[in-house]
């Protein structure tokens, strides 16, 4: 188990969270303390234990390939909550570079 503590600025960048210096000063020891608590997991034997992503053993839950027109939002409804719309579109500030 890695013991080095969190590079909080890097993690905040990944999470797209702007943090103030004051927040970093507050969060760093809090997260450190939680991670110390979490580190106790290292002592639990999980050799040959499968991972649980879901507790219930469902498989292959799928839908038929059909339209559900009743769920489609009108454009007005789709855009109603938009912080900024322009015509038929959602509008955002300029995109700097491909991130995908």
């Amino acid at each position: 188990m890695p013991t080095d503590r969190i590079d909080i600025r890097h993690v905040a960048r990944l999470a797209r969270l702007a943090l103030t210096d004051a927040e970093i000063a507050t969060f760093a020891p809090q997260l450190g303390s939680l991670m110390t608590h979490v580190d106790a997991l290292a002592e639990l034997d999980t050799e040959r234990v499968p991972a649980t992503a879901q507790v219930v053993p469902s498989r292959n839950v799928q839908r038929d390939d059909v339209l559900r027109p009743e769920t489609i939002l009108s454009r007005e409804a789709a855009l109603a909550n938009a912080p900024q719309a322009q015509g038929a579109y959602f509008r955002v500030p300029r995109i700097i570079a491909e991130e995908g």
Partner: protein
Amino acid sequence: MSTIASSDAALTSELLDKYEAVIGIECHVELKTVSKMFCGCPNAFGGEPNTKVCPVCLALPGSLPVPNARAIEHMIRSGLAFGATIPAHSKFDRKNYFYPDMPKNYQISQYDMPLTVGGVVGYWLEDGSRGECRLTRIHLEEDTGKSTHASADGRLAGATSSLIDFNRAGVPLMECVGEPDLRSADEAVGFLETLARTFRELGVSDVKMEEGSLRCDANVSVRLRGAAEYGTKAEIKNMNSFRSVRRAIESEIARQIHVVESGGRVIQETRGWDETAGVTHSQRSKEEAHDYRYFPDPDLVPIDVTSDVVERVRATLPETPFARYVRYVDDYGLDSKRATQLVDDHVLAAWFDRAVAASGGKAQAVVAFVLGDLARLANESGTHLGDGKVTPEALAELVALTSSNAINSKAAKQVLEALWVDGGSAKAIVEREGLAQVSDRGAIAAIVDEILATNPSVVADYKAGKLNVMGFLTGQVMKASRGRANPTLAQELLKGKLGG
């Protein structure tokens, strides 16, 4: 990073011999389904912006994805067509990164347990040469919306804001990842064309590049011919047609050879293809490597694919275009161009196959009609052969009539035109129109005598050594027989009488 214009990048043949390119293709293909991948919105190109969206594909708070069963079956179909393994267990993962046209800011994709693993794409080039490219995997994911950039030229640079349409968000997308088995731009295009043909044949995608339903990236590197290690690769993006794939890869190979030749080093980066300038441009090299934080999507449950399902899908697989091409060339002896013409029109190819079968395997004779007179007739009338009145069985009859010399080629044309208009059987038309070829020596000899008698000066010319008047005389015999005389026999008799 400087860019080198393609004209400067022209390579001498020595340089091309000295280096070898290594190319791997990754392409995204939109699947053909009625509804989107995880919701009941229509999967259809275009339309008024933001009118094909619901809480799920708009990622409204609280909405949940439910996977489209047909999309999963399309994946299995695609994998099996290339001989891939279909693992018994598969799952969806989240690929986390922020981008404004991706509503959830994660993409539901597949990380370590794709629906299909491995497989080989056999492909061919225009000149008839063939190759193989291994597939790493094909996995299932969802498409993003589209952003347009509010600048004068609609490009990112200089834009002050962007406008987003989410109609495409959530359209099922398969990502095919190929191994770096390709060695030239031609091979890359051949590979892609075969993929596209195969997906169309399977009915899993329309593969319309102009609508963006096939998008591809190419990893390109160069190395000294014979070297064991790969060179450093660059990833080329933004190629919107097979033509631009070819040009972009050629341009990138040339650029990299120039870099290496001038003592430089190729750097690992993403480069965008500029269609207008004909060059690739460095896109901001990744200062911060992506950290997609893949993890199993807790909104979705695992997929188990039983062998029963695999066998059921396998049983419905059509012949692949590559297998068909190989059959046409190797078994039927068609040339590559004709074989490709047929393979590229799977309705025509199926028609052709039926006609060949009905004719007892006379593929050469059938193809001559199918791509010759029948293609012309179809073209003139603006209909597809498959929708016309001529049946493959009628054509087979016609082939039998010509090859047994029951009718001659001129009559065959007439029969074909009659079949095109009225349909029915070739034999019936031959009888109705009295087109059966006359091979009775006596009858033809009588006509020959008559022609020789009425053309004494031509006969004199022939005897004086002007042997080319034979054509004229044969024509006269054919005309007098209203086209029905067996031309070979007519010529033989003419020669006999003139020479005797």
